[in-house]
């Protein structure tokens, strides 16, 4: 591919320069188009950054981001713990798995946002219903992939472990978990993205606070600069979380043969 005589610095430059150029080009385009259009519809990049700075200095941005982060973390952790635990149980108890599979598939395919009005009327405005929304968005990919992973264990493995008189506990520790975890990681990566969507949805449609509220109030006040600033922040968070998810997944991927 590449001449090996190039130094490491040149290699990194060659690797990252095109993307830096592409980013600069995109931002320049945003700036130009933004200056030409009505500020009610589109503000240039510079104005967005000014507004972002104002929000940052005023402390609103940090407070709302922390608020959102708490919601995201609670719902996400809950969906991971419940998803993996339920997935392992389903994988081990075949009757349950066979019986519940179609219902899980249906729930996985249902757009969860549609349940938000019911959660609202049942549980009202508060932290718990919002956590429930984030949880519902995230739990099914984890559950589904954990079950898939546990199913990929060859029956012979379990039989060998049995023949060596492995107890149920050793069986879980040495066979079930190591085989299932890499698959569960794929589910966790998917859940990160979906929980982020759930977080914003909960903040849009249940009690408003956090970054979702920032977006909603900016759009209602025709504060286009604030709207773009908030979207930019969520964009950065989304990209960061996605990278984290892929890193997690590939960290465990070599277990998968």
């Amino acid at each position, binding site marked *: 591919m590449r001449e090996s005589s190039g130094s490491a610095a040149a290699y990194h430059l060659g690797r990252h320069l095109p993307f830096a150029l592409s980013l600069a080009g995109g931002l320049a385009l945003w700036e130009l188009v933004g200056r030409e259009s009505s500020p009610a519809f589109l503000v240039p990049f510079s104005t967005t950054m000014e507004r972002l700075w104002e929000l940052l200095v005023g402390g609103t941005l940090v407070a709302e981001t922390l608020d959102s982060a708490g919601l995201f973390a609670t719902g996400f952790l809950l969906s991971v713990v419940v998803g993996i635990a339920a997935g392992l149980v389903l994988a081990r108890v075949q009757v349950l798995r066979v019986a519940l599979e179609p219902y899980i598939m249906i729930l996985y395919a249902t757009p*969860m946002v549609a*349940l938000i009005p019911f959660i609202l009327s049942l549980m009202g405005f508060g932290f718990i219903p919002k956590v429930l929304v984030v949880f519902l968005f995230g739990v099914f990919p984890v559950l589904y992939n954990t079950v898939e992973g546990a199913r990929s264990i060859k029956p012979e493995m379990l039989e060998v472990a049995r023949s060596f008189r492995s107890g149920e506990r050793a069986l879980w520790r040495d066979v079930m978990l190591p085989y299932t975890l890499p698959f569960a990681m794929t589910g966790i990566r998917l859940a990160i993205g979906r929980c982020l969507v759930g*977080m*914003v949805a909960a903040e849009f449609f249940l009690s408003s606070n956090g970054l979702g509220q920032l*977006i909603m109030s900016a759009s209602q006040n025709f504060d286009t600069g604030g709207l773009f600033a908030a979207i930019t922040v969520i*964009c950065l968070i*989304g990209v960061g*979380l996605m990278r984290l998810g892929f890193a997690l997944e590939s960290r465990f991927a070599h277990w998968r043969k």
Partner: protein
Amino acid sequence: MVDSTMPVDPAAAVGKNARAGDALVARLIAGAVILCGWEIVVRLSAPAFVAKPSTIAMAIPRVLVDPAFLASAAATLAGVVEGLAIALVVGTIIGLAIGRSRLVDVTLRLYVNIFYALPMLVVVPLFALWFGYTGAARLVTVVFASVFSIIVNVADGARAVPQEYVEVARSFRAAPLRSLFDVVLPASTPYLLAGLRLAAGRALIGAVVAEFITAVSGIGYFILYNSRTYHESEAFVGVLVLAGFGVGFDSLVGWCTRRFLPWYRRDRGA
């Protein structure tokens, strides 16, 4: 998945049939338990307006013949299908370009990744601002929600096309565009369908969120309106129809994979 290692002999086949029957019984029992549990919990502890299986079942025939509901369902379905069609065409073209051209890849990859990672519903207020509180905002949301998963998957597929295919096309002096559409595109179809499957789910969510925010008539708005006016059972029928759309798209794509790409599943199973 069926384990392919199983020997094919009549006795095993009989065992299989018996197992399929058992599975059906187990599923029916599980379904009955879930429905009864739901009914009992709601009857004992929740106000009368809360949706429970018995009232939902009674609402189903009423809602399904309601012309207002049918119009809403048709509007949402049309918006989703139209948006998916646009996303499919645009996403395939951009995805092929990214997968086969280094220049396009370097220029666009960053933006595709950013927008793919962005939770799509944050842009719905912006689209409402740009396109008004109309069906156009829903259409744009659906396209935005679904196009990036198609781009990402088609680009992966186009990259994974065996080099020999492209070389053979070139030795037969196929024009680059022809080899793109006659060789690369068919070879990356499995990826395209996988992307479409993801895209369909995201498109449905996008349509519902757009209807929640812009109050454009559709199933999403039907659910919101009915649940706000204490017609939860009617609203829940809307959720069931949405879930039906979700499962329907999923099985349609799965059917297409089996029908048109039988080699794909066989390869993967081996």
